[in-house]
């Protein structure tokens, strides 16, 4: 089944309502998830906070904020993402990103910026320790055993004792294991240094590719990395990430667009045309087996998302390529991903 996601980013919006409206629209279209980007470098609200605010106003759609790993505390990050999973009843994701610039480093004043390789190495460790902390509580740790007076069975809680290159964490988490076991981890794997981390940890990889061939190449590499790290490559969903401008919906796509494919720009590959041609492009890439789905970043959020849902999605549903209702309730279920086993289960602490 085809997977679809959309970005909710809206410059200079700090109030909840415009985000709620877009998320509901995306949910109306049955999309797997929405993303909200984040960086300390530019103005805008904290993405995870915005998506927690949205959680109770939506019922099914996955919620995937970007949370960076460079200047943040891994322990706080995993707790916040786990909590997003609790408040959304199993719909949380986490788009893992790094902070590259010296400007971001100056906002914290703790250390300088570093090369991408080092930042992704650290992100890899953060992803690793987060998974351990999510597993640091077994699912059935809470027992409420009146006879012995115990609220939990502490044999089902585990120290993680993680030592990385830049931090260490003792654990366990303060938050019980979230509903999905592990919230869904999303990594933009367009840039080389991010790819090994994506292969190892991502449930969903985003690839900004202007052609089907380019997307295929990255996907093959990601699947290879996944296999090398002992994962089943079929447990990794690869989505092509496109900036979409559906403003010319009434007209045929520009030459070189629509059926011809997106055009590379500074913000990534841009598709400009109508919703129907976008459905053509999605159909053809998907049927060639290039990708498992698409992550669409509207240039005019309100207008483009509306056209996406009522035009592109409706057509894909009509063709039987995309769901018309959510058969499951968690983001993992939408993506067809299993709930991960607990790496500590059965061990004594």
């Amino acid at each position: 089944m085809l997977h679809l996601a959309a970005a909710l980013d809206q410059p200079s919006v700090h109030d909840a309502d415009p985000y709620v409206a877009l998320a509901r629209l995306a949910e109306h279209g049955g999309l797997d998830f929405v993303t909200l980007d984040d960086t300390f470098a530019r103005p805008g609200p904290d993405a995870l906070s915005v998506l927690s605010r949205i959680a109770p106003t939506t019922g099914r759609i996955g919620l995937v904020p970007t949370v960076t790993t460079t200047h943040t505390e891994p322990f706080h990050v995993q707790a916040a993402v786990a909590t997003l999973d609790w408040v959304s009843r199993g719909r949380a994701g986490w788009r893992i990103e790094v902070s590259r610039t010296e400007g971001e480093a100056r906002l914290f004043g703790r250390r300088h910026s570093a090369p991408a390789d080092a930042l992704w190495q650290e992100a890899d460790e953060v992803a690793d320790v987060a998974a351990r902390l999510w597993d640091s509580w077994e699912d059935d740790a809470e027992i409420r055993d009146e006879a012995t007076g115990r609220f939990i069975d502490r044999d089902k809680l585990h120290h993680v004792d993680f030592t990385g290159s830049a931090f260490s964490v003792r654990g366990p988490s303060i938050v019980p294991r979230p509903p999905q076991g592990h919230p869904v981890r999303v990594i933009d794997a367009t840039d080389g240094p991010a790819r090994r981390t994506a292969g190892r940890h991502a449930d969903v990889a985003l690839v900004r590719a202007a052609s089907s061939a380019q997307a295929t190449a990255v996907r093959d590499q990601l699947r290879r990395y996944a296999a090398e790290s002992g994962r089943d490559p079929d447990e990794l969903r690869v989505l092509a990430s496109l900036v979409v401008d559906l403003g010319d919906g009434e007209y045929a796509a520009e030459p070189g667009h629509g059926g011809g494919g997106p055009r590379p720009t500074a913000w990534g590959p841009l598709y400009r045309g109508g919703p129907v041609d976008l459905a053509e492009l999605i159909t053809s890439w998907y049927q060639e087996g290039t990708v498992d789905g698409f992550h669409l970043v509207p240039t005019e959020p309100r207008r483009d998302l509306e056209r996406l849902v009522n035009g592109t999605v409706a057509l894909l549903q009509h063709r039987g390529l995309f769901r018309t209702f959510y058969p499951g309730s968690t983001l993992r279920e939408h993506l067809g991903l299993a709930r991960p086993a607990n790496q500590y289960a059965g061990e004594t602490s």
Partner: protein
Amino acid sequence: MTRRMHLAAHFPGVNNTTVWADPRSRSQIEFSSFEHLARTAERGLFDFFFLAEGLRLREHKGRVHDLDVVGRPESLTVLNALAAVTDRLGLAATVNATFNEPYELARRLATSDHLSGGRAAWNVVTSSDAFTGENFRRGGYLDRADRYSRAAEFVATARELWDSWTPDGVPRPFAHRGRHFDIAGEFGLPRSPQGHPVVIQAGDSDEGREFAASTADVVFTRHSSLEEGRAFSADVKRRLARYGRTPADLKIMPGVGVVLGDTAAEAREKAAVIRRQQTSPQTAILTLEQIWGVDLSSYDPDGPLPDIDPVAEPSLTRGRTRRGDTVAIAEKWRALSREKGLSIRQTVIEAGGRQSFVGTPAAVAAEMEEFVRQDAADGFILVPHLTPGGLDEFVDQVVPLLQERGVFRTEYRGTTLRSHLGLSEPPRLPLSSAP
């Protein structure tokens, strides 16, 4: 003029007052529990809803403490979600100043204030041990003076950031260089709907009180008997003048429990049952071990107290506030036990008693009013022992009586937490120096 009181709701959780074994006790982690309690608080026109925080699970004898509620969601994330299911209720998060960084936390708090339309509050705590630090990059330990100096600079820095945009919404560069932080750049958000999130303080040392007087809008305290409350309140409010502030600028709110009955006797009986539920035989022994600092698992909770002396520096329990001079406490408890002929469990119950308002709704309303009238408190943070229904009775039975007495609001006048608390919007700091 009658003084109005302020009311807040504490989500019961990781503490030994929460009775998880009661059949009415529901999930401590699922959102529905938080939603129920927050909606109840808003139905009762409360000022705010309060979440505590702990960043390391408590341990006893080297293992995770297992007798009380363990585990909770991360505060700010839950409160952001609660902003969607409430309209007026203030949303207060406890967040540690020792294990966070000003830019990031100021941004998260400002985001919450924007998303909730001006209802965010921050309870600034500092943590006290390297034990918690083992979960963090910055690790380690700061002694008390340094913790409060960092916390004070942290809040001051956050305020610089919150005020760094011009009134017409243009970001201006900030630069802060101090003892603890050396940061510069542009803040991500304009000034939030109530100017700054409300700042709460909960700590009782001299440094803590000074910090409250200089910086906080609300103090959350455990001093909850009338006499202690009056003394504490007078002490903290006396310190305000030093910072050019007046008593109206700082609200003192003790945490209290409430037990209601149709008669005074019934309420007392219920309170006794609850105290027993809060102190299981296992909890009684463990409480003793926390003071004695040695393994007492062979003692009978229904038998007498040990006659051995406690070790001076108990280290059996980690992640809990120190209890002070343990030898003196042990002496006091033994005296209490001898005098009244109490077992271990009965002694723990008797000695560990927290101030609660116990009685008929009318008596409780009258007593609460008395506290406020006598300057023992500006209001209360109610700590129910049940999740999530523990405030239902209070809101249904006591709030209307407080309203009849004219000491509690009958509607929300404003939309922001500052307006509920009667606090003015903080003046904008002069635009800070560019780097």
